[in-house]
């Protein structure tokens, strides 16, 4: 299943690439894309795994840029 998250204060393109790489490495994630300009994160994973994956995504994002927020609906 594919989910899209909006991001806030994503200020460096380099970081976006690093986040994308980091999120791809999370177990259960089959595809990830961070669009720097649109401030969007697209993640593909099994639906029932999202619960475990989301906290890890937030951790990866914080690790790269502590100012950047992922908005979880």
């Amino acid at each position: 299943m594919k989910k899209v998250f909006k991001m806030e204060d994503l200020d460096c393109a380099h970081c976006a690439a690093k986040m994308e790489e980091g999120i791809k490495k999370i177990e259960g994630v089959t595809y990830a894309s961070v669009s720097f300009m649109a401030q969007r994160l697209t993640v593909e994973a099994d639906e029932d795994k999202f619960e475990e994956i989301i906290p890890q995504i937030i951790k990866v994002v914080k690790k790269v840029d502590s100012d950047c927020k992922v908005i979880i609906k």
Partner: protein
Amino acid sequence: MKLKKSQKRVLVRIIVAAALLLLCHILIGGHSHFGENHGHVHLPDWAAALCYLVPYFIIGYDILWKAVRGIFHGQLFDENFLMAVATVGVLSIGLFPDQEPEYLEAVMVMLLYQTGELFQSIAVGKSRNAIASLMEICPDTANVERDGKVEEVFPDEVAVDDIIVVKPGEKVPLDGTVIEGASSLNTVALTGESNPRDVSVGDGVISGCINMNGVLRVRVEKEFGESTVSKILELVETSGDKKSKSEAYITRFARWYTPIVVCSAAALAILPPVIMGLIGGFESAPWSEWILRAINFLIISCPCALVISVPMSFFGGIGGASRHGILIKGSNYLEALAKAETVVFDKTGTLTKGNFKVTAIHPEKIDEQALLDLAATAESYSDHPISRSLKQAYAKEVDNSRVGEVREIAGHGIKAMIDGKQVCVGNRKFMRSIGAQWHECDAVGTVVHVAVDGEYEGHIIVSDEIKPDAEKGIAQLRKLGVKKTVMLTGDASATGRAIGERLGVDEVHSELLPEGKVKKLEELIAQKSPKGQVVYVGDGINDAPVLARGDIGIAMGALGSDAAIEAADVVLMDDKPSKVATAIRISRRTLSIVRQNIVFAIGVKVIVLVLSLLPFIGTLPPIVAIFADVGVMILAVLNAMRALYVPKK
């Protein structure tokens, strides 16, 4: 210009730090690459250092903090780390016995870096807003009629078949059909076309248009989530997900470039002095000189200019295109469009208007009206443009009770039971297959043959109008260097050829069934050069498989057609074939901006790296390095923003 809160804070810090720095410099003075300055107040070295540290921390505290955090998080090579090491390095040079302290330089480096970052953040925000302005097509409310009263609700609360009222100056909130009133609609936000579109009772209206003068009552046909506005917004928002090769390349480049330069910097700081020290004795080792060179390396090792300007250019290009009513679904398609080598057009609805009109009726035995009656009744369930033209010419309500079983035979026509008789309406292949004694007609247009119970009853000529800008569109493609233009059509070859010649396309392939079009396209793809791209342009209504098969599928006249929006890679909001050339032009321009930025940014960095290595030039002041870094970034970002503004041509 409106700044975000965080941007304002940085701006204030820059101003305060700059003022304090100037004050320190005037009062205390000191040594810098700009020469000696003897200040008015004489302070001991340590006190002078403390004074300079005030503006340094004001401007750099967050960077230092992030650098420390980054180290703990394993983000060793991010730009905060680089700037922290570089400025601390410059500050610590004063500790060497043979060097004067260079506080001014250290604070300047931080100051310029922050200024560059601020500028970049403003520029990125501006580009993002440009796309957001497209979001202005999004309506806020809808006026829905409920129990005789008009209520204002959110568009997503309106159901299909509700009646909405659209007043002058308002946006049409949902797709629907006008049931009362007449007005002009401004579609410029959707199509880039400034001529208003006139609508009256019975016409479809599309969400996102602005009602200009009359009050309209509209029956809603699609829920908000399915309406044109939502589809467009979704498409624009997701366009960033599909990345281009250049973006991937730059990310890869940055991944290797920074660590390599940082390691070289470390080597540069240590190896030469150690070697010289071993040869000439430790006392003479020029530590500070080589540390300064290494610092230059560090400052210049930030790949920001590249990493930010490339996605920004693509984003700008996609945004600029959308202002012309051209929606590109991803940077990869923008990149591919620039290499368009063959452009294949579908004929009906793409190069021609698709508004077929009955131009002649040639019956065999029965009278004209009876022949038209058979054809229109048989086609009554079909929504094909030809069927519509037949019904239009019939001008009476079709009596559906006369029609029994109806079967549509793809690429042939329709077989229907009417008044108990089997009526076949279709092309000559169909006639051949049922064994009717049909004959040719020399009139230009599509010939619709009619047979009843296998007996040939005559034919009806339906012809189509060529779009006014089709010829210009093809000529523009040729001017852009597109090697081959091709037209595919299901029409008879005589009609196809006649139209192809008028338009000036290089190749015409006629009498193609939908599968035939896919096959033909595959043949054309096999013929192209390895890097060239085959573009297929269709209306997306009945050629979705072909659209999907092309290297790039362009659907036009997409206003109101969901199927087209979904199947295509590039969507033209209006139905002008000349927009294909515009799209290619925009993509080429964007790509050339990307290329300029890559060459320029890498070029300047390499030059500065080499300069800071050359021993005979002496040490380059770090301020030159930071100017090179920030300056390149600013120029690259400004250049990238150019992609957003597509000149009208």
